[in-house]
């Protein structure tokens, strides 16, 4: 462990841990909503579907800084929503790692929805008909058929979103600031190191760490998605 600590400084370890925590929470919190949105877009026809589709994809084209600013306006402790959450439920997003997770979750929502939607749309209607004649109702079919068959897509979306979360910068720094140990994730730590005289080495180490993380993530994702596809018989 002492040797490991030699590679990175304590503050850098902290940034790494924080990045992983923010990304994990953001991805997991997104998952149920992303699945519902994907199901809605893949299976239902309703007025205003184009608008919902647009809203889901908005974070892809919105400047992250703008989103961070909007979040600050909504969840700041003086804003009505932020004040309500803090006073009634004791939840505070600003200047907290949970705020970083919230911002990351919103920004990477479209990645998950797109991947899950594609995997739902790729499922043959014939299998659902077969399940229906065998006595399965809509909810039953969702859990016994559509969800397991969508698993590779769900996983692919989660991995993409996780990777995107690790790189999030603009929305985090605008919404929850750059607080060491609380909101300073790896990208913010790199930024801080560059701003600090003599910090080039630290910046380079952190950049290398980012690359290693991204590569490991991609390889893992590929392996798991192969396993998953084999499991669901594709």
């Amino acid at each position, binding site marked *: 462990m002492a040797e490991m600590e030699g590679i990175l400084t304590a503050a850098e370890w902290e940034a790494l841990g924080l990045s992983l925590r923010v990304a994990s929470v953001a991805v997991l919190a997104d998952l149920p909503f992303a699945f519902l949105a994907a199901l809605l877009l893949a299976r239902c026809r309703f007025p205003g579907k184009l608008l919902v589709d647009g809203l889901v994809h908005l974070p892809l084209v919105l400047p992250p800084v703008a989103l961070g600013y909007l979040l600050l306006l909504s969840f700041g402790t003086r804003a009505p929503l932020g004040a309500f959450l803090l006073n009634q439920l004791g939840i505070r997003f600003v200047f907290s790692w949970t705020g970083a997770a919230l911002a990351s979750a919103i920004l990477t929502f479209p990645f998950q929805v797109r991947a899950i939607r594609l995997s739902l749309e790729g499922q*043959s209607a*014939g*299998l659902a*008909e*077969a*399940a*229906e*004649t*065998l*006595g*399965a*109702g809509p909810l*039953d079919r969702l859990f*016994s*058929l559509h969800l*397991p*068959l969508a698993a590779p897509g769900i996983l692919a979306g989660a991995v993409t979103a996780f990777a995107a979360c690790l790189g999030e910068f603009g929305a985090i720094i605008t919404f929850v600031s750059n607080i060491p140990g609380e909101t300073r994730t790896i990208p913010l730590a790199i930024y801080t190191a560059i701003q600090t005289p003599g910090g080039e080495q630290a910046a380079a180490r952190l950049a290398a760490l980012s690359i290693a993380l991204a590569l490991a993530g991609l390889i893992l994702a590929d392996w798991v998605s192969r396993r998953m596809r084999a*499991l*669901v*018989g*594709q």
Partner: protein
Amino acid sequence: MKTGVELHCTQGAFRLDAAFTFGNAPCVTALFGPSGAGKTTIIHAIAGLLRPQAGHIVVGNETLFDSDRGVFVSARERRIGLVFQDVRLFPHLSVRANLLYGWRRSGMQINADTVDQVVALLGLHALLERRPRTLSGGERSRVALGRALLMNPRALLLDEPLAALDAPRKAEILPYLERLVRETKIPMLYVSHALDEIARLADRMVVLDKGRVVAEGSLFDMTVRLDLFTGAHPIPGAILEAAVVRHDPAHGLTELAFGNTTLIVPAVSRGEGDKVRIRIDADDVMLALERPNAVSANNVLPAIVTAIRADGAHADVQLSLGSAKLIARITTRSLDRLSLRPGIPVFALIKSVTVGGREHG
């Protein structure tokens, strides 16, 4: 009380107006007709995947659909087993889980013996832990059959279950289907345009064309009608039920009888007195005006010409042998040469007889 199936529905330019007997007796009804005749529409309507504009569907005294009374039982609650042409096994489940999918949702008490029986009937034991992806086409078809059987269905609908298989796979599945038909007491609707399958499996036949029922009746009566089969589906020839009279081991032959007629065929592995289904193709029957004395054919049967239909170079001649009927396909040249017409006595020379696997107890 309404019985059977009566359907009226319009899909674009296609209109279906079909009524036939089905679902109140444990027998196999073949639904026969060219592509686009409405066979799959009927299957989907009976299964509840499609709601006809008008009509009724009564299976086993249970009204599943009645437009007059506003009854429409959903596909989920119908308990109609459907074997799809494209099989549709669940790819993410093992063979065992596929088999039990419908059973677990039937809300019925079926003991493990029933599962074992179906597994044995269809020869699925070695496949239980495998995934559908790893099965051959024939194995998949058997699993699909088992899955539909184990849901404890009121009726079984088979939508061209062998159409996607090549000839060797078909030959592999047919014996299983024959056992299934013999050992279960479920009404079955067997959609096919392969007359050889129908000849082996069905008891009754509904002939469909352009959304209408052209003819309906016992298989024995339908296959000797001259007006039903044309073009792509030439007349299949007679399908008869015969009894094993005695075996002649010295010559490797068996004597069969239907009505007052005796037939000699290659040895049949059945006991004396057993009923067997035989098929005499129209192409395998020759006609003579006088009894030929020196011919190789073992079976020379006296008959009366009852009807003739000439079509181009060929003529189909319907013959009566007591209560049974045969079809002979000859050239129109021979027809003229022999001056055949209804009422004339002839001798039918049978070149070959197919003894099909189905017994009637």
